[in-house]
């Protein structure tokens, strides 16, 4: 379908994501955050016989939803390419995958220490007006913008 083949504009995607945050609050009175899915998956794998929590299913749902978005666009094409990332950091698998593994570790450890990620703090916590989420969002946005510019200057990312 053409509707799903073309990128969803921000003024549709933003309100939809906001409604999903509010929808989860209405359904089960819980804050939405992807990081919680990782925390609970680690715990679930560590404790045998325990059932997966709703946050594990939220994360699994995101994987399924991603797949559906590609299928709806008629563009489910498994690939090892990752945009211009590989021309800056190296091939996948290869040097690029080592960089992604290291960056992922920073994401996991940092988000855990900071108590949330782009969805948990940046969308949900900001919407609820939590002071910690406002500080976190300004910090990771500002930090990421600085690091992106450093990468552009040092190794020519984006050139």
């Amino acid at each position: 379908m053409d509707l799903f083949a073309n990128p969803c504009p921000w003024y549709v995607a933003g309100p939809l994501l906001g409604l999903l945050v509010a929808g989860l609050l209405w359904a089960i009175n819980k804050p939405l955050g992807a990081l919680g899915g990782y925390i609970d998956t680690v715990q679930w794998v560590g404790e045998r016989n325990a059932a997966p929590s709703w946050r594990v299913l939220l994360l699994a749902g995101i994987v399924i939803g991603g797949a559906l978005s590609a299928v709806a666009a008629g563009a489910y094409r498994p690939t090892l390419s990752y945009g211009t990332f590989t021309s800056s950091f190296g091939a996948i698998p290869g040097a690029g995958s080592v960089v992604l593994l290291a960056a992922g570790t920073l994401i996991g450890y940092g988000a855990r220490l900071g108590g949330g990620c782009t969805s948990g703090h940046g969308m949900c916590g900001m919407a609820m007006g939590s002071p910690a989420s406002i500080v976190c969002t300004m910090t990771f946005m500002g930090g990421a913008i600085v690091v992106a510019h450093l990468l552009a200057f040092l190794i020519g990312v984006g050139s």
Partner: protein
Amino acid sequence: MKAAGLLIGIGFGFVLGWSRLTDYDVIRDMLLLRKFDVFLLMGSAVATAAIVARVLRAGGARSLIGRVPIAWSTTRPTRNHFVGSMIFGTGWAISGTCPGPVAAQLGRGQFAAIFTLAGIFVGVALFGYLKRRNEIAASAPRAPDLVGPTPGL
């Protein structure tokens, strides 16, 4: 609870993929301040969620599952919020993705996500391991203070 989590997750992953927040170049162009639609997307998501959540709370709505009044608490910022978010932002800028979109990438068949996902699990597990170790160290009985000259000096 689980069905709600799964359904909201499917919707979330679908919109992340449909709006191309799963593309490295989209996030790169956002962080290099070349394109501003992702900032507008996030801003409109926050505004929508803020309004709907407050309408639900003010109207005395109860959760569909559990029938508890819709409410939330807020948190005061600490040093850990700042330090953790700096580390997180660095990983985000390098990889061009974060915990939500990377899961949608995997679903879309962008297998670079396998490495980023593995890293996130390592980081989360490492944090949990270090936290537990520190708690054990803090609760362990301390050796009595030595009186007199320290042995070995």
